[in-house]
């Protein structure tokens, strides 16, 4: 080691760009390793993107709060009965063995996220993510009770008074009510929601039900009321990997710097050209409405959840000033740089990457739908008996024993007929007709016989065919038949 030529080693220079001694107080400062959370008071905003967000708030929450109350026949339409391990989704009865559909759903969700992100950035974050949706609801409540941004800031800065106590108390009361109702609804997906109400009235909810109502409610209250943008900035993994999926043709909320700078305040009647100013009036409203507290004029930042609030508010300002809209707008980095028109921008949005995502997503969706449509309403597992290899029974027959688990995925009693094929003379010696109760699974011992010397000794592949009497749906399951030496 000591003899090696120092020049042959790669030297990574570590240079302090601005040596500590040369830095003056304005240039650098000593800061703590931790950052105190700065409370953000988003100003309320209305406009095209805000309306879209409220559309999604209503859509997602009508589904979430409403679904458990729907009835389907004699039962709750959507119910995940973890105790009995049956999952009811309208007409479907799913078993844990149908896990593949959940996998399919997750694959579809992931691909949708890829697709939306490639097209228009963090669409999910800005419009449909529960964190955004509940924050929006909680902010609305806050706005109703405490007033808009400046009123809230005044209230927080002011001393405690009866007014402050009532407003703060009222806000937290409503928040907690919404949060607990959310927790109650969540538990209602796993235990019949109407019975849960009855249990609550009679004060006999099980400890796990109470725990989950409170836990889910507390998470809603904490995340939507207090954590807010901190969740997106520090906790959410999707936020980070979505940022990695952007490219220069992804639509993002951008500030048109060429049009806006140099910025500056001016009177509505003033001629910007005379003042040597461009479109940005530096009103700072885009900063005030931002739920993550960033300044979009600094360019694309990881904190930006793509909610478009700044675009909405800037458009209203531009309207007031009589300038063209779109100083802050959905555009791509390439479009801003090359000054593309809207049509040119959209042409570049539908790039190969987006088309590939779209076709894969469509393929998976179709596969899933076809698979659900062609699904037989029962399942069968064939397990060879663990105790018996093969036995010779009277009548000179070789007998093998199997255990068949028949899972009835319908909500009526079903008759199934078991037949077997694969060797000449092979037949089912036990009862061929099996009855399985609605949504139940049943193990049946099935004896299969083969005439002596009907096949060479060894293992032979055979197939069980199980046919539902009413629907004549059929399943074919593979197994083996053992012939002893």
């Amino acid at each position: 080691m000591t003899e090696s030529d120092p020049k042959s080693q790669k030297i990574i220079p570590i240079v302090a760009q601005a040596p500590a001694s040369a830095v003056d107080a304005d240039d650098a400062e000593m800061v703590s390793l931790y950052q105190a959370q700065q409370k953000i008071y988003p100003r309320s905003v209305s406009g095209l993107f805000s309306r879209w967000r409220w559309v999604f708030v209503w859509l997602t929450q009508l589904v979430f709060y409403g679904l458990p109350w729907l009835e389907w026949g004699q039962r709750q339409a959507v119910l995940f009965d973890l105790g009995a391990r049956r999952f009811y989704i309208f007409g479907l009865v799913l078993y844990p063995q149908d896990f593949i559909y959940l996998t399919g759903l997750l694959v579809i969700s992931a691909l949708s996220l890829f697709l939306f992100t490639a097209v228009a950035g963090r669409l999910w974050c800005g419009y449909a993510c529960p964190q955004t949706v509940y924050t929006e609801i909680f902010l609305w409540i806050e706005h109703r009770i405490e007033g808009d941004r400046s009123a809230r800031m005044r209230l927080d800065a002011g001393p405690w008074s009866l007014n402050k106590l009532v407003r703060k108390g009222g806000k937290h009361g409503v928040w907690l009510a919404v949060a607990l109702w959310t927790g109650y609804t969540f538990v209602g997906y796993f235990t019949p929601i109407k019975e849960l109400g009855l249990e609550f009235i009679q004060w006999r909810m099980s400890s796990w039900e109470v725990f989950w109502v409170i836990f889910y409610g507390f998470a809603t209250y904490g995340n939507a009321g207090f954590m807010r943008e901190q969740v997106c900035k520090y906790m959410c993994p999707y936020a980070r990997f979505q940022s990695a999926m952007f490219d220069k043709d992804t639509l993002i909320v951008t500030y048109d710097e060429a049009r806006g700078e140099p910025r500056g305040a001016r009177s509505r009647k003033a001629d910007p050209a005379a003042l040597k100013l461009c479109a940005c009036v530096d009103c700072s409203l885009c900063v005030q409405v931002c739920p993550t507290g960033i300044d979009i004029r600094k360019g694309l930042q990881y904190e930006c959840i793509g909610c478009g609030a700044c675009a909405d508010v800037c458009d209203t300002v531009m309207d007031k000033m009589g300038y063209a809209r779109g100083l802050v707008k959905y555009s791509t980095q390439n479009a801003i740089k090359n000054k593309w028109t809207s049509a040119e921008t959209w042409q570049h949005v539908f790039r190969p990457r987006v088309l590939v995502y779209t076709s894969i997503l469509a393929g998976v969706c179709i596969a899933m739908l076809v698979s659900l449509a062609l699904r037989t309403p029962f399942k069968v597992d064939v397990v060879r008996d663990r105790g018996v290899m093969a036995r010779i029974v009277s009548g000179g027959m070789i007998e093998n024993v199997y255990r068949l688990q028949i899972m009835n995925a319908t909500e009526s009693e079903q008759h199934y007929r078991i037949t077997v094929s694969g060797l000449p003379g092979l037949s089912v010696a036990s009862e061929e007709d099996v009855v399985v109760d609605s949504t139940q699974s049943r193990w049946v011992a099935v004896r299969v016989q083969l005439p002596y010397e009907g096949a060479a000794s060894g293992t032979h592949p055979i197939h069980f065919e199980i046919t539902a009497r009413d629907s004549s749906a059929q399943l074919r399951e593979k197994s083996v038949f053992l012939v002893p030496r």
Partner: protein
Amino acid sequence: MSDFTSNFWSVFVTAVTLVGIIACLVLLWVSGKAKAMTANDNTTGHVWDGDLREMNNPLPRWWVWLFIITVVFALIYLAMYPGLGNSPGKLNWSQQGQYEAEMVKGEKEVAPLYARFTAMSVQDMARDPQAMAIGERVFMNNCAQCHGSDARGSKGFPNLSDGDWLWGGAPEQIKESITKGRMGNMPPMAAAVGTPDDVKNVAHYVLSLSGSPHDSLRASLGKTKFGACAACHGMDGKGNPALGAPNLTDDTWLHGYGENAIVAMINNGKVNQMPAQEGKLSAAQIHVLSAYVWSRSGGNKVAAP
């Protein structure tokens, strides 16, 4: 309780654990006090490879509370549960203890169910779907390994569904077989029967008892030598349930069919054991199981009104 070879290790593990936790707290405290320099462009001023700059992205302060919560949780956990060397913890929790507690809880839950069955006769239980469902599960977990999941047995393991019994098929006899087990013993009888030819003749006589294909000359010769077998199997070959001696006149061939199998049995004998279940299953479980086995043998048909 202790898995340590000497008490030193217990102290050592305790010390390492506690010092580790305290070190975490010290680290939190030190890093809370520490300051870093940042330039006004929000970098730390450090540059690598000419242009790679280090941004100042501080951790949110509330995150520190998560660390503190984990430390508090760890201390409470270590106080309550075994974790500090030999200490069993305040709750005195152990895997063994939890297992026993859950067994007691489980038994308490099923006790009223079994109490109902204990009050019922085997015949009544055979008509009770719930008793039969429980019996089937007990059978599948404890009996099916040998007797098969359809209770029809296999070579060497008796068929329980054919109404043919080695030790008797009355409910009390079935219960006795399950509780205490059975030891079937066929001694080697070659010397008592005589020459190998005599053995062969006896084998043909045995075949003739059940009307199976046989050499009638050999069978009639074998009949004279059958006296050696009659002590257990009876002069008529119908066996003796008190001894577990099988009936030779039926068509059940537990240990193999044909001249060779019978000759081998006479020459070598056989010990065949049904293990006792009383240590594994409770008396109530055996009661339900007896009813299930009895019903599988066709007992329910007999009992049906």
